[in-house]
């Protein structure tokens, strides 16, 4: 029996090799299906992985205070998406409130003041963020060149740039000591950040594009209208994160008059929300990709049916020399299975190349797990075999004499 099975696979491979272009076209559906399923799920996994590692790098004890209420526990279905659509800034006073809460060690505000910024080049619209001196410590972010402003410089006109902002404004990597102009004020560039791998807790602003100035200065030059969109804090005792969250919430509730139009998130909570969205999206697109796998299966059936009709003479010859119906059936079924298997393998290779290209062209880092590879291969095999059944039965049932006559 073993030798017969080997023979069938070998025979199937011979038959497929003999009709290279047709076999390839048949497999194309499966190739695209498998490749897209693996790539889409890989991207989803990769983004999740990136966000997770970012949070892990930050530490789990970072607490974010943000406008509007976002709760991961409500994060089911499409609601997760709509929760993120409204963002209104926090009142300026909230920074002091948060900083003064019990158990808070450091509090770092992030206030956005947009506007025209002029460096060497023509003025461009930039995101200017007012923050305090502890910011690099809290985010565990390194400087590429220069230093961040210190606590003494909270009123000084100094700026630190994200790496892309530096290039855009001054067309060079190290514009230390240069001057940029924002709202009629000159700022001296003190430092340039290393690449931010991802912007923590915020999808809106990429810190690589941002300009950082002292918080006090930002409020002064904007007449205290800079939008405070986030305050990041760290508790004194990492184990007491929950208590600190509670005390911050209590104080903010009091100052907001009992209206909970803000949210206090631990880093793992915000992670949960992000993961929920990513999972949903991955499932959605993965589902669409799976449909293309099914379409690939229909393609296999189609071509196998044509191939059976075309190869009736071969069926006749094989039967004449002693092939039983069962052997013919198995032959065509194995051919369909081999087609979809080879298609799946090529699909995996294509997905691998796609992965490489995505890594080169974007900052996404797709992760291909063996589970999804196995799943995609398995599903395509099952699809191939199921859709191979009908043509195989058709070939097997043909009486030998009819098979000869049917040309």
């Amino acid at each position, binding site marked *: *029996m073993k030798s017969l099975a080997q023979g069938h696979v070998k025979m199937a491979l011979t038959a497929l090799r003999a009709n290279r272009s047709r076999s390839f076209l048949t497999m194309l559906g499966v190739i695209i299906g498998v490749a897209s399923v693996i790539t889409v799920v890989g991207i989803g996994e990769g983004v999740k992985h990136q966000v997770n590692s970012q949070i892990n790098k930050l530490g789990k004890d970072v607490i974010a205070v943000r406008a509007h209420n976002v709760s991961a526990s409500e994060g089911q279905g499409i609601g997760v998406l709509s929760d993120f659509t409204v963002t209104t800034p926090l009142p300026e006073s909230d920074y002091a409130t948060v900083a003064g809460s019990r158990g808070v060690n450091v509090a770092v505000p992030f206030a956005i003041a947009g506007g025209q910024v002029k460096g060497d080049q023509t003025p461009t619209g930039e995101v200017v963020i007012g923050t305090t001196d502890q910011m690099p410590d809290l985010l565990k972010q390194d400087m590429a060149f220069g230093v961040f402003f210190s606590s003494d410089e909270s009123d000084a006109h100094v700026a630190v740039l994200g790496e892309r902002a530096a290039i855009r404004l001054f067309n060079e990597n190290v514009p230390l000591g240069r001057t940029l102009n924002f709202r009629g004020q000159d700022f001296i560039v003190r430092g340039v950040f290393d690449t931010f791998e991802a912007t923590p807790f915020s999808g809106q602003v990429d810190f690589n594009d941002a300009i950082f100035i002292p918080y006090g200065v930002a409020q002064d030059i904007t007449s205290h209208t800079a939008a405070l969109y986030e305050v990041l804090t760290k508790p004194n005792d990492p184990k007491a994160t929950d208590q600190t969250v509670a005390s911050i919430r209590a104080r903010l509730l009091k100052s907001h008059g009992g209206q909970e139009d803000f949210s206090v998130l631990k880093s793992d909570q915000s992670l949960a929300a992000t993961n929920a969205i990513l999972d949903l999206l991955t499932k959605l697109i993965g589902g669409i990709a799976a449909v293309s796998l099914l379409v690939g299966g229909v393609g296999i059936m189609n071509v196998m049916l044509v191939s059976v009709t075309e190869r009736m003479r071969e069926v*006749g010859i094989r*039967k*004449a020399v*002693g*092939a039983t119906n069962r*052997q013919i059936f198995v032959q065509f079924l194995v051919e369909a299975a081999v087609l979809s298997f080879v298609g799946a393998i090529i699909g995996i290779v294509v997905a691998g190349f796609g992965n490489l290209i995505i890594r080169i062209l974007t900052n996404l880092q797709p992760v291909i797990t063996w589970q999804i590879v196995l799943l995609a291969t398995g599903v395509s095999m099952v699809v191939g075999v199921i859709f191979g059944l009908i043509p195989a039965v058709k070939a097997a049932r043909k009486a030998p*004499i009819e098979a000869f006559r049917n040309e």
Partner: protein
Amino acid sequence: MALLEIQDVSKLYGFGDATTLALDEVNLIIEKGEFVAVMGPSGCGKSTLMNIMGLLDKPSHGSYKLDGRNTERISPNQAAKIRRDTIGFVFQQFNLLPKMTVLENVALPLTYKNMTLTKRLKMASNMLERVGMQSREYFLPGQLSGGQIQCAAIARALVNNPKLLIADEPTGNLDSAGSRLIMELMSEIHRMGNTIIFVTHNPELTRYATRVVYMHDGTVVQDEKTALGQVAPTARRAMYNVARLSEEEALAGVSAVMRAVPTKPAKRTLKPTKKVTTKRKTKTTTRKGARS
């Protein structure tokens, strides 16, 4: 015991008014070791008879015993196994699989016998050597001449060491050199003790046969023993007629060639007649309900 025993076998095609009678109560017994030539105009049922003898087709009526076994009630699977183990086929169209090498083609019947690949290829190679084709083992059929392809087809038919070799117009697509090559090969196989039944339109080729069966309109009309190396008497008559063909007869084709053969069924005999009996003058009748 006769190798092959056909009794009152009829074959009908179609339904109702469109029914055609391809075989009409044919009786034929073929002994082991015979080299039988079957002749007759196209559409006389030769191929249908070959298919029934080869278990590719089933008779509508009548019984067919192969090697003492009644084939009336066998399943398609059993028929496949008998084809595999007892019967070798050679076709006019050669019917080798074009995408496989000659060696793989010859090994094909063994594939269905659960044999290991090495053993299959070795046996196929031996068989190709026997038919003088060893140097062409790795050629594709498309790269060979007709005669060579047919040699390979014969090797394929013989690779299972069958008791019966059925050749349906094996020389039909070959030139005279190719025909001679194939016939010499078949007679050599016959000398080794195989039973061969072959269909031919060429009276000259009856030289190789030990017995000639003439068919017309689905019946056996003449059945005669012949000496090896001699054209059968009835066939010779047909052959000599060829020279005197008129233009219309040329258009009528093989039917005209066969006009020396009686069109009425011979007296039903289970044994072939020993004596040449045809004395009647016959003329070609129009074919009725004949099909290929």
